[in-house]
């Protein structure tokens, strides 16, 4: 990999790493006696590990000038693997967290292993580790293919990918140690937040520099979404994380805003993390990989335009539906509700556009589990957004808020939409990236598909049941006009569903492990020669080709 960097880039890389290591050591020194020091050492160790990789390849011959006639895919390859590793780990933590809600003593008498610390490891791990790495990896791939231009240089994509993973490592290790701002999906402390801003600026510059060199006059839809993802996440991240640290030697900080203003800012952030991280970025994937895999152009260009701008504009108003009936002023709640309802139009336009693209390729959907993953993702996207708009209605939210109905909705989106489109896209991408004729096993993709679908269905249905039962029990009155059920009564009623959810999660996790195995075997073996699994796809002989000599 280092062989692909020019001598100058290797020098810059070394300088950056020295700076990172120094910053790590400095954090360790000023943060003596505080957990900040632990993070300092983690940063320094991370920098050194990357430095070792760099130094081992530092003498490799420089890449040829012809490289500009090829795309630069090394960061994408590494990003795919990182995404799958994070996915398996974070989903395993998800299953553990789910089990703890069924059997709360299924843990150790240690602070790091308690529910409150594991839960953000799960949420950040899946959203940022699994989802974020997949977004970065695919965005580099899509960007180059749709602009027909190579990334502007070889160093900055590595900076983004590895820098981003450093952020994820700080996030996850921090939660285990109890370092958190408590803001959902924005838990990491101030120094990690500052670092993410640096990484994100470089990410944006890669995008804009590549677009500037594009050989296609038009910027393709997928890139609008990736750009919205990058830009809006930057805005949200900066505003929601404004805080004053106790001192530069403390990891702990105090949020700039308080009370109702902080709540509104947090849920403006939170809902749009859903919109621009979990939706816009993944719609970028959908708009590229689904038509590509189906071999058909996107059904309607106009529908793409309407849904893109509709989503970009309206989502930003909808955050207040997280605060219905709270101390947030009524007019803001109403605005949030109205925009959430109208939001269904652009959302369904996207889902519909994807499904109509498949019209005429249904036989492929039937035979190809990879394409079926993408189709299912579009369907779940439609379901989750319909459900979301419904839950945003004040009266409905009075029932659903604070209950497992929200968790069910989250995972209809997260498992059904985010994870499915990610797996589908990665399955499509892996053979292209490693120049293999096909995946190691199409049967395993099929197995994964059914594990993922059944896991999602079990998960979502058990949470719908548990949530609606709890919501109804909370508001049930007996004949005397007093509340009929205690809080504990609801816990007892929900217990079976918690067990079912854990089982559903286990199925989903098993699917992710199968995916990891399948990808790993695809990469590590040259190609299946005569196995039945690959026979239903066009098999090319695994002859050595130019790419194999390029020093990869």
């Amino acid at each position, binding site marked *: 990999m280092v062989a692909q960097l020019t001598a100058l880039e290797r020098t810059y890389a070394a300088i950056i790493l020295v700076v990172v290591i120094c910053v790590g050591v400095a954090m360790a020194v000023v943060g003596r006696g505080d957990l900040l020091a632990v993070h300092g050492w983690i940063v320094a160790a991370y920098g050194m590990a990357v430095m070792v990789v760099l130094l081992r390849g530092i003498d490799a011959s420089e890449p040829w000038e012809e490289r500009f006639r090829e795309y630069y895919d090394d960061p994408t390859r590494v990003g795919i693997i990182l995404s799958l590793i994070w996915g398996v780990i974070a989903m395993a933590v998800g299953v553990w967290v789910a089990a703890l*809600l069924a059997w709360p003593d299924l843990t150790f008498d240690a602070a790091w292993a308690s529910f409150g610390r594991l839960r953000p490891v799960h949420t950040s791990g899946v959203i940022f580790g699994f989802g974020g790495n997949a977004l970065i990896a695919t965005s580099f791939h899509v960007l180059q293919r749709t602009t027909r231009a190579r990334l502007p240089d070889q160093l900055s994509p590595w900076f983004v990918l590895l820098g981003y993973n450093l952020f994820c490592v700080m996030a996850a290790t921090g939660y285990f140690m109890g370092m958190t701002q*408590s803001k959902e999906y924005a838990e990491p402390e101030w120094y990690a937040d500052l670092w993410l801003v640096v990484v994100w600026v470089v990410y944006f510059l890669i995008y804009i520099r590549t677009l500037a060199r594009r050989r296609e006059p038009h*910027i393709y839809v997928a890139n609008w979404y990736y750009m919205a993802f990058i830009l809006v996440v930057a805005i949200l991240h900066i*505003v929601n994380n404004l805080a004053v640290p106790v*001192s530069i030697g*403390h990891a702990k900080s*105090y949020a700039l805003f*308080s009370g109702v203003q902080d*709540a509104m800012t947090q849920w403006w952030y939170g809902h749009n993390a859903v919109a621009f991280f979990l939706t816009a970025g993944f719609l970028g994937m959908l708009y590229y990989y689904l038509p590509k895999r189906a071999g058909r152009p996107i059904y309607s260009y106009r529908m793409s335009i309407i849904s893109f701008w509709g989503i970009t504009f309206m989502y930003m108003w909808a955050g207040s539906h997280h605060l219905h009936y709270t101390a947030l002023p009524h007019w803001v709640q109403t605005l949030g509700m109205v925009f959430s309802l109208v939001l269904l139009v652009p959302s369904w336009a996207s889902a519909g556009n994807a499904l109509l693209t498949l019209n005429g390729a249904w036989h492929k959907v039937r035979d190809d589990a990879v394409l079926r993953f993408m189709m299912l993702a579009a369907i779940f996207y439609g379901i989750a957004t319909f459900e979301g708009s419904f839950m945003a209605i004040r009266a409905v939210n009075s029932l659903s808020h604070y209950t497992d109905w929200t968790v069910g909705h989250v995972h209809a989106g997260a498992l059904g939409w985010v994870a499915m489109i990610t797996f589908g896209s990665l399955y499509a991408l892996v053979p292209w990236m490693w120049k293999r004729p096909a995946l190691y096993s199409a049967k395993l993709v099929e197995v994964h598909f059914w594990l993922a679908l059944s896991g999602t269905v079990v998960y979502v249905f058990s949470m719908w049941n548990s949530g609606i039962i709890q919501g109804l029990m909370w508001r049930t009155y007996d004949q005397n006009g007093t*509340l009929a059920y205690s809080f504990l009564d609801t816990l007892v009623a929900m217990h079976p569903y918690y067990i079912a959810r854990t089982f559903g999660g286990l199925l989903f996790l098993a699917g992710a492990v199968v995916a990891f195995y399948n990808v790993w075997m695809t990469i590590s073996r040259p190609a299946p020669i005569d196995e039945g699994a690959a026979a239903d796809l066009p098999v090319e002989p695994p002859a050595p080709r130019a790419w194999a000599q390029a020093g990869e």
Partner: protein
Amino acid sequence: MFNFHYRLERNAMGLVLAIIVVASIGGLIEIAPLFTIDETVEDAPDMRVYTPLELAGRNIYIREGCYACHSQMIRTLRDEVERYGPYSLAVESKYDHPMLWGSKRTGPDIARLGGKYSNEWHVAHLYNPRDLVPESKMPAYRWLLRNSLEIDDLGEHLAAMRAVGVPYTDEMIENATADAYGQANPDSGQAAGVAERYGDATNVSLFDGKPETLTEMDAVVAYLQILGRLTDAARQAEQAKVE
């Protein structure tokens, strides 16, 4: 319109600017006025700030992720008011940087928890919830009793809180460490200062029952006992409505 877009798509910077402008509108219109419209946050002249010990407890509450299962926001719904008490007012979290309203009730709302149970109950419950409530899903927080509380830097914490707008006085900041100690040791010389600075109603008590050491348990229980009691505004508002 589509023709315009056809041109916009050919201009990367144009697209970037358009995205930023279009996406900024909603947040600006919904968030900015919350800082300027006076009615957003009610007046509560009796509102006091967290003592250093309570703040330390609040930070442990955050550290352990308690907010993931407990809300501190009673909605304006009849059943919630009957179950938990008067609905929450904006002013009650005025000094909460960040707010801990929560989004999921795996456990009950605790916005009005203060004073509902004894200190002993809380200590036993945090040590092992299932000793008191067999059906509970809550983790056991045994280490709170084992860990001694870090109080040396509480002055810096108060100063940071002041930097974001909480009215801590110089005196409070200077005496933060002593006040934290005094609040959990009623018989000590430091106890008197706490009432002096934070009001006579402040809960000065042997929270974890052990005078020798100041543990994290002391801080957490002190925090739990102040929930909903920084101001009486919510109870008064309800009273006013009844009359």
